[in-house]
């Protein structure tokens, strides 16, 4: 098989995507992207969140259908209409989150994914054989609930390998792994590639891609940016390609930092679900008039921090979060809003707005304290007026106040949500991924709004994976990694290298900083 594979390598790519396009209701996820991978090649797909990586992979795997473009397999046009058809071609995918049943064994789990009848004993023997051959130690008879996260991932990989895939897709495989487990995984992938398997490796971790991958396709905002040899580029150059601009000069505006508005004291929160990240003694202070940015790779505790700050998750100790001198750890989201907190969540459609409801109804969602409810009944006139004001002031392009939220583009919906929150005269504003998937013009407007609010005395917390955005908008920056918060730096006193190192988790702990302050 090997020699035959390598003969093909020179001429025809194993899989080639041409001019793929995918439009979701609120966002153009993939726009005219091409990608080709040869047998035996480890090919990175590099991009920020929202760059279109996952959508592109789902298209290859048959889980999403492109609106336009061609897919070729061994030079022949194919139409991969379902994951089943993808598997028949020889495409396997290891997902970021694993679908395993906890209460049954490794072998039983794998048997569920394999077609046809199965013989558990023979299967167990094959699992042992494959796992030894690729350096993935695994006992097929152990129940899954006893396995570590890294071992669970091995189960997924072995499950894929048993199908002898020609193309293996790995979706951010190292996000849940320890450094040692990462080294082991890379070894396995190199063996597979040497045997002729093509591997598509999705990541935004630049060092890993430089170590492992032969080629890298870079996506940004759903568009194809280019193809490079990652080992020949510096990390900084890759980051620039991925983010799309040089790290911007900090905008200096006169910052009048007022008193502490929002404060956490050694906030510890358990992780949200098996793939969550627990917060470990996070201490931060948000001053009025300031914009604090929290950078970091997704899944490092951002979701838990936001849930704890906004009251969607109630912490045990009321005194671990303070808002304007009031301990709010045990207060729900509604009570915190009453104290002047507003929140623009990352997930616009489905959390920040109810998709099938009109913009008017969506104004009521959080604006209900602005004179919209009298004696338990909704004052429809007041709500519609509020919605109309948001649309006018924030330049929301839509069909009017009665348009459903899901009919708006991502940028316009985000402007509407930002407007709805800001018109409530907040004291604290929390914004997650403010311009994720938002077009350039709307991004500029939203960023300007954030800066203007701070100038008017609001304390703003921006949580974003887009480091460029944080350096552009914020006065201060900290990094969250592994559930811990780095020291806070003035944006003018730091640089991308330092922040990048912190993103990998290399920074003194919050406690150490506190002690330094005390000393």
């Amino acid at each position, binding site marked *: *098989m090997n020699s035959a594979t390598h003969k093909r390598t020179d001429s025809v790519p194993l899989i080639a995507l041409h001019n793929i396009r995918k439009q979701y209701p609120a966002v153009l996820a993939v726009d005219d992207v091409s990608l080709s991978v040869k047998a035996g090649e480890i090919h990175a797909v590099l991009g920020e969140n929202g760059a279109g990586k996952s959508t592109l992979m789902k298209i290859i795997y048959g889980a999403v259908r492109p609106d336009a473009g061609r897919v070729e397999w*061994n030079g022949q*046009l194919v*139409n991969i209409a379902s994951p089943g058809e993808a598997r028949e071609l020889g495409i396997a995918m290891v997902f970021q989150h694993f679908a395993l049943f906890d209460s049954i064994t490794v072998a039983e789990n794998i048997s569920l994914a394999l077609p046809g009848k199965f013989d558990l004993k023979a299967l167990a023997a094959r699992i042992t054989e494959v796992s030894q051959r690729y350096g993935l130690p695994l006992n097929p008879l152990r129940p899954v609930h006893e396995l570590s996260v890294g071992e669970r991932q091995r189960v997924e990989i072995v499950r894929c390998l048993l199908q002898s895939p020609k193309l293996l897709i790995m979706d951010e495989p190292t996000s849940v792994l320890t450094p040692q487990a990462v080294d082991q995984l890379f070894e396995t992938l190199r063996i597979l590639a040497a045997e002729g398997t093509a591997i598509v490796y999705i990541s935004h971790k630049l060092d890993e891609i430089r170590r492992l991958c032969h080629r890298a396709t870079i996506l940004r905002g759903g568009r194809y940016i280019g193809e490079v040899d990652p080992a020949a580029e510096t990390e900084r150059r890759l980051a620039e390609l991925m983010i799309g601009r040089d790290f911007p000069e900090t905008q200096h505006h006169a910052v009048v930092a007022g008193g502490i508005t929002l404060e956490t004291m050694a906030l510890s929160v358990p992780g949200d679900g098996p793939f969550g990240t627990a917060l470990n003694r996070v201490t931060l202070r948000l001053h009025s008039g300031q914009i604090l940015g929290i950078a970091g790779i997704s899944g490092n505790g951002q979701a838990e921090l936001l849930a704890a700050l906004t009251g969607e998750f109630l912490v045990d100790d009321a005194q671990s979060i303070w808002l304007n001198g009031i301990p709010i750890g045990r207060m729900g989201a509604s009570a915190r809003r009453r104290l002047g907190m507003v929140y623009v969540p990352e997930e616009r459609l489905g959390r920040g707005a*109810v998709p099938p409801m009109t913009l008017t109804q969506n104004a009521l*969602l959080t604006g209900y304290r602005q004179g919209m409810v009298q004696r338990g009944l909704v004052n429809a006139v007041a709500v519609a007026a509020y919605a109309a004001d948001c649309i006018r002031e924030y330049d929301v392009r839509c069909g009017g106040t009665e348009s459903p939220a899901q009919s708006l583009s991502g940028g316009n919906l985000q402007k509407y949500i930002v407007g709805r929150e800001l018109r409530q005269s907040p004291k604290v504003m929390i914004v997650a991924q403010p311009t994720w998937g938002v077009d350039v013009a709307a991004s500029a407007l939203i960023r300007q709004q954030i800066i203007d609010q701070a100038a008017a005395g609001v304390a703003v917390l921006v949580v974003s994976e887009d480091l460029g955005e944080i350096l552009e908008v914020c006065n201060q920056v900290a990094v969250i990694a592994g559930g811990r918060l780095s020291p806070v730096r003035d944006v003018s006193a730091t640089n991308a290298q330092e922040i990048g190192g912190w993103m990998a988790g290399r920074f003194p702990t919050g406690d150490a900083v506190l002690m330094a302050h005390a000393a």
Partner: protein
Amino acid sequence: MSLQLPFRLIPRAQPSQRMLVVAPLLAVVLTLLVGLGIFAALGQNPLTAFRVFFIDPVSDIQGWSELLLKASPLCLIALGLAIGFRANIWNIGAEGQMYLGGIFATGLAIHFHETGGAWLLPAMIIAAAVGGALWAAITAALRAHLRTNEILVSLMLTYVADLLVKYLVYGPWQDPQSNNFPFTIQFGDDALFPLLASWSWLGFDTLLEGTRVNLSILMTLVAVPLAWLFMDRSFIGFQLSVAGLAPPAARYAGFSEKRLVWVALLLSGAAAGLAGVSEVAGPIGQLNDRWTPGYGFTAIIVASLGRLHVVGIVFAALLMALLYLGGEAAQIALQLPKAISQVFQGLLLMFLLGCDVLVNYRVERRRAALPVVQPVAAA
């Protein structure tokens, strides 16, 4: 390998709003068409059977009275259920909550049989609402505080409530002169809803002579606009809709899920309880062990058929009541089996669900098999 059908369902990006309204009507038409076929298969002239089933029951004032008597509790229960269903809180146990309403009302009726006054019926109405709400409160407490599944709990509590009724009518509350039949004494006049026909000053006495329709339909007539106000104009109704359409948005806005669970279940329980008193203090006039034709379950169909909207529910309740009446008429006039009304109910629900699938999905033929890919080794 999964089953390979020649077609498959693709979700529509934006289901047509018009079809959402048309689908229930289409389901009704399809049910009627299949019904004609069933009549024919049973050896009846389909058109005669159709007339007996759907026209004759409402061809006189007597029929309309019976129709209202059946539609009223169905409508009442379905309005309560719709409040919860909008928030994805699935109270399947309205039947049991109705039993409890009946039990609570009966307790008062029996206890104050000799001594009652004009206050007795209003007290029974309140007791019935409380009884139904208390029964639903068990489900609410378990769901809100222990995160159990409200579908299972409310459904299973229905069987508990059924046994409770049986215990009472075979035991402590049995009529001493019943010759061991399972029923209570007949309620006194103070414990019964007056017949509309008895209110001569309304001028209905001649028109309504001999009909059984009673004042309990007033409860439904009041409940309809109140339910509309609650569901479509109140802030808590809005919160329930948000919780149903986008649970993360409800959490984001800070709407308390526990509170919504309590509100939805207590209101639907109270509505079912009221339906219970309208029966025991209405046409039946006592508590016995088989006094309901399953209104609590049929109301689930009514709520779905009515699209969880007040106006739709009113019409759906009338239609379901007609199916009950038609089934009875068909038994008597055509010697068709009793199950025929349930067959129609089942058909209706099935067609509604089927139409809903087509509203939300489009059917697409699977394309021809994939182009054959040469195995790599063969190259």
